[in-house]
């Protein structure tokens, strides 16, 4: 019977160690495979959208209205204008409220209201977008009519928690020394917030808002409920009837069994995806930079 421990044994891999190393290699390769799979799916989706959508893109597609009674030809100009309008109004509503909530939660933290408000923001963030759609339907559409404003309101509810969260993160990154310095100079609380803390967090707040815009621009479920029965006119009138928009156009075209509609859907998807991915890339780059500046 051999001893359990043999000090003269050579320090090379025994069979057991070889097996353990092999298991480790297999496991780490599996994680690489998972990452390749996810990136591959992204590439596949983006590639398909480009491949099938590029054929649809033309000057006419981007600037003309769709034919009034469906069918081939025409473009998606009213939908592009409509989505831009809806999202801009939503951002104008969500950004001030989101930033104010974030200031309340970080700068005026510690009160009895902090926890419930934080909970409310988290709940709002976890609401399925279709539920937000039904809520806005009950609040603004039922008994009245669909409108661009209702769509903006729904998108604002999707953007608000995202903006509040990214602003909170940025406010927490503002160095404590800045606050201390302002306090030592006898600067009042509100001047410190408005004049010192907000400006130094501004870059992050803006990019956070841009990311929220990119997220909201593609939301379809709430728009389907509150802003989906529209004509083919380009309009900025958000309080009038429903206004055309890209996500609902893609959805409607994809649900019809019409091949020329599919081509248009891919074209509209390409326009939307280009906007969203470019916005994401730019905003993420800027965000990383302003984070670095803050923590340096």
């Amino acid at each position, binding site marked *: 019977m051999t001893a359990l421990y043999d000090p003269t044994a050579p320090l090379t891999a025994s069979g057991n160690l070889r097996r*353990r190393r092999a298991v*480790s290699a297999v*496991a*780490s390769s*599996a*994680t*690489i495979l*998972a*990452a390749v799979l*996810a*990136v591959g799916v*992204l590439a596949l*989706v*983006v590639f*398909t959208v480009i491949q099938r959508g590029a054929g649809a893109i033309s000057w006419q597609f981007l600037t003309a209205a769709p034919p009034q009674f469906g069918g081939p030809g025409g473009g998606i100009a009213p939908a592009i204008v409509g989505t831009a309008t809806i999202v801009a109004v939503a951002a104008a509503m969500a950004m*001030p*409220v989101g930033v*104010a*909530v974030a*200031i*309340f939660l970080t700068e005026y933290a510690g009160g009895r*209201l902090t926890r419930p*408000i934080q909970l*409310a*923001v988290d*709940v*709002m963030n*976890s*609401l*399925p977008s*279709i*539920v937000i*759609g*039904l*809520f806005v339907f*009950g*609040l603004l559409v039922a008994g009245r009519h669909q409108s661009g404003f209702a769509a903006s309101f729904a998108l604002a509810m999707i953007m*608000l928690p995202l903006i509040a969260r990214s602003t909170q993160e940025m406010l927490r990154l503002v160095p404590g020394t800045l606050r201390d310095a302002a306090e030592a100079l006898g600067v*009042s609380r*509100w*001047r410190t917030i408005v004049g010192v803390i907000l400006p130094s967090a501004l870059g992050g707040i803006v990019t956070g808002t841009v990311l929220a815009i*990119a*997220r909201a621009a*593609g939301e*379809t*479920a709430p728009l*389907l*409920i509150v802003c989906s029965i529209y004509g083919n006119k380009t309009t900025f009138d958000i309080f009038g009837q429903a206004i055309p928009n890209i*996500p609902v156009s893609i*959805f409607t075209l*994809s*649900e019809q069994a019409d091949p020329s509609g*599919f081509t248009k*859907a891919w074209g509209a*998807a390409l326009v*939307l*995806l280009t906007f*969203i991915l470019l916005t*994401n*890339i730019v905003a993420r780059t800027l965000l990383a930079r302003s984070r670095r500046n803050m923590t340096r």
Partner: protein
Amino acid sequence: MTARTAHARRATAARRRANRIDRWAGLALYATCLAASLLVALLIVDVAYQLVHGSHLAFSRFGLGFLTTSEWAPNFNRFGAAPLLFGTIVSSAMALVIALPIGAAIGLFLSMFAPRAVRGTVGPLVEMLAAVPSVILGLWGILVLGPWVRGTAEPALHGAFGFLPIFGPAQTTGASMFTAGIVLAIMVVPIIASVSRDLFLTVPRELRDGAEALGATPWEVVRGVVLPATASGIAAAACLGLGRALGEAIAVTQVIGNRTGVHASLFLPGDTLASRVANQFQGATSALHTSALFYLATLLLIIGIATNVLAQWIGHSFDRRIGVAR
């Protein structure tokens, strides 16, 4: 002498005025932030109110029997949510079964195994997958993934695992619970990946170094130290992903086939709560129909909140059991 006092008096008055302005401005800023916060709280309360209000008609007509009725016949004013609850649970569960191992593996790759340069590109790319709008993923789902599922995946799975009832005979359309599960998995993977990556990075460096110094291979460090220390967090990440899958309406309605029915086979069409609302709300034929859809959304909200509560409860009890100090 008098000039000096007058000057001092003026200065004091100016300071008082400044103080007063400061006080009012400070109060105004606080009031604004408080008002915004209360608005958010009010909106949440109003969401609950609107859903209850909207579903009142259906609730008073069907009561809780709605949950166990499997019929959905708008023309006959008969509505039941059982097949939709089934479809929601099955499609989300399938998404989670696929997405949890893949997402956690990506999290491990990004936090443990990948070189820094690879991390910097792969991480944002995976997050970019979450930025693809659901309507575009759904479009891809019906026109690209669906045909592939019908032509390749279904026959292959039925051939290999046909003895399991979930892999029934292949169908003529690609619109099925199976396709919906895959599309949902694609949406859930980036969420689990980014949450679990951040989670794995919180494991103290010394713990990992200690295990390595004892001769553990990289995988043994993960199995023995990283995963046990973060298990509750992974469960929470899974619940976050589950919440996303449960609530997704558009992409699911595009690919699931929109049929009412409870089938064992994943290759048959079905429907979910959220998908049914998205699909039928515009064309609702009666007030009762609309109300039934509101009822579905209320159920969705309750399930979502329950998932969240469960996630936190799992986290807490697990932390207590293994005695992780946080």
